[in-house]
């Protein structure tokens, strides 16, 4: 999942992107409204976290233009302004959620998950694939009630695979989801991560098949 964080305060932006990256998201930070808008033109983001008080173009203006262009990605407003009318106008302009600074991190993460779930999973909380149950709320894969221990990168790959069950996911798509401006994930690194993931899943009868030239697909191993 790739998130654009539009926040002019470097201190908060860095901290948030650390936490979110740790949670397995790819995060880009834009410090001005203009930068954020450019980023939205270039990259397909899954979520925009938007500060209202942005220099050069404020968050409200950015949001207005974004929706006018027909971009549908979920937007979470994150701002120090807490007046009712600010919240109402933010939501009315097409934001999907609103949080006031300072915020509780677990709540922010839960809201991000909820927004993404709606977008990516059509609000389903559990997705089942064979013996594998993927909980979209906690982002934990379990098999027979036992959770599988995955690294952030492995988890992100599994997530995109499960999102596109039955379809082939190509390396570019995976790169898009895993990379951000700071870290470009190489195909090689993806290969390694998929190898590890496969090793963790195969004992349970699930594998990730490489389809040469096209990409990967998650499959149940027919015994």
């Amino acid at each position, binding site marked *: 999942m790739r998130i654009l964080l539009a926040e*002019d*305060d*470097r*201190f*908060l932006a*860095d*901290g*948030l992107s*650390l*936490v979110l990256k*740790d949670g397995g998201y790819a995060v880009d930070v834009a*410090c*001005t409204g203009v930068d954020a808008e450019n980023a939205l033109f270039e990259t397909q983001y899954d979520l925009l976290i938007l500060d209202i*008080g*942005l*220099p*050069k173009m404020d968050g409200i203006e950015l949001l207005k233009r974004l929706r006018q262009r027909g971009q549908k990605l979920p937007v979470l407003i*994150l701002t*120090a*302004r807490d007046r009712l009318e600010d919240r109402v106008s933010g939501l009315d302009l097409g934001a999907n959620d609103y949080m*006031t*600074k*300072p*915020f*509780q*991190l*677990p709540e922010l993460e839960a809201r991000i998950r909820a927004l993404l779930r709606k977008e990516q999973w059509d609000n389903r909380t559990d997705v089942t694939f064979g013996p594998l149950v993927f909980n979209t709320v906690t982002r934990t894969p379990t098999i027979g009630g036992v959770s599988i*221990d995955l*690294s952030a990168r492995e988890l992100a790959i599994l997530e995109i695979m499960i999102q596109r069950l039955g379809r082939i996911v190509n390396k570019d798509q995976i790169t898009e989801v895993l990379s951000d401006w700071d870290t470009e994930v190489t195909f090689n690194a993806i290969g390694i991560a998929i190898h590890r993931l496969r090793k963790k899943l195969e004992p349970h009868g699930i594998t990730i098949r490489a389809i040469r030239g096209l990409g990967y697909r998650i499959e149940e191993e027919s015994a």
Partner: protein
Amino acid sequence: MKKSQPNKSLRLELRRALLWPLCLLWLVSTCGAYFLAVSFANDSHDHALLNTADSVIARLRADGSRVWADIPPAAQAILRHNDRDRFYYQVISKDGVRISGDSVLPGPYPNLAAREPIFRYGTIDGEEVRVARVRAELDNYSDKIVLVQVAETLHSRQHLAHQILLSIIVPQIFLILLGGVAVYHSISRGLRLLATLEQALIERTKLDLTPLDDKEVPLEVRSLVGAINELLARLRGDLESQNRFVANAAHQFRTPLAGLKTYIYYAKRLLMGDDTGDDPEMRKKQINTVLDQIDSGTDRMTHLANKLLSLAKADHAVSNKATFEAVDLNMIVSEITAELVVEAVKKGLDLEFLCSENPALVMGNPHTLTELAENLIENAVLYTESGGRVLVSVVNTGHVLLAVQDTGPGIPTEEREQVFERFYRALGTDVPGSGLGLPIVKEIAIAHKADVIITSGPSGIGTTVAVTFPAFSENLLVERRENGWQKRREERNYHHPGD
């Protein structure tokens, strides 16, 4: 109405100012009226008395040396007993010897030769009487001339005098009473209007600063209400800007607080997580990085709090000029520039200070002036990229001028006013600023009656902030030169005993 007694009761004051003069007026007019009445009564009665004397004269009969009044008893009765007064008459010779008539009349008096009638007061049987004396010529009398004295008691004229007096005094009393009541009532009504005003003020909450209604108040109080309304308007403005400021300050704290919370959360997660394969050294490093971030975030908030505090102090300085003294701006600016050189060198900037040739004296508070210079130079250093140049100069051309010139990104013309607004940040972005530096500068400049002007640097590059101080008064210079400079010199000697 009796709710609150002001220090000096307007009503008592008015009563005192009105009642005593009215009483005095009444007293004076009573006396005047009394004398007037008495004199009117006397005039008319004297006239009547004279007539009576004439009738007595008309009745005088003379026979050689004998003179008598031939007044029939019936006429005497009429003469002697009118309803109130008793009447007396007497004929005397021109030498003052009684010839005939009542003997009880008070004796003759000097000036017997007077031809005109003579009036005087006397007493008969202990009762006061009015006596008139008339000269009459009698052909049959040997002496030819007699004097006729008539006298009557004063009851009638007193009665008349009283009546005249009453007819003046009574309406006067009523008039005065009426006036008093009218004044009292109008005062009461006026005060009642004030009381409604008072009530309107009492019933207000402290946040209700809308203007008072001045339609109902008396004309005289309208200017007071106007003044109150002006004060309310000023308070309203102050309160609004204060509220805006507090809201801004709260917002300003929220973002770094959110940052701190984020890092703390991350640190906790790093400590709790037993991520597979993560080597403990690596984790320790990560935690250290996060702690460093928390540390710098706390520093930033401390910086912000300090700036807020110094802004509050600068606000205070506007109203407190007691701490002003003659200060050489060269010293202040050179000291603070020297302090900031370290920061500039760290950033790879060229920070230079040019002092004025002669002392650049201004009247001011050395601490706030230091703060002003510090904020300006700090800003220039903060916003100028590595390799740039910051030139600080003090010029004295009658007016003292402090200019800080940098080769930073510059401030667009349309934003040059806004940067003085609290928490307005022209650049907003990566540079850690509080958004309070220039507002503090402005506040201190106002306290020193100095002008702050922002322009682009030479050839349009960077920013120049110029602070122009008012001309230093020569009188103050002479007066303060000794103690001011002396003091500063002592201070410096104290700080650097070796110099």
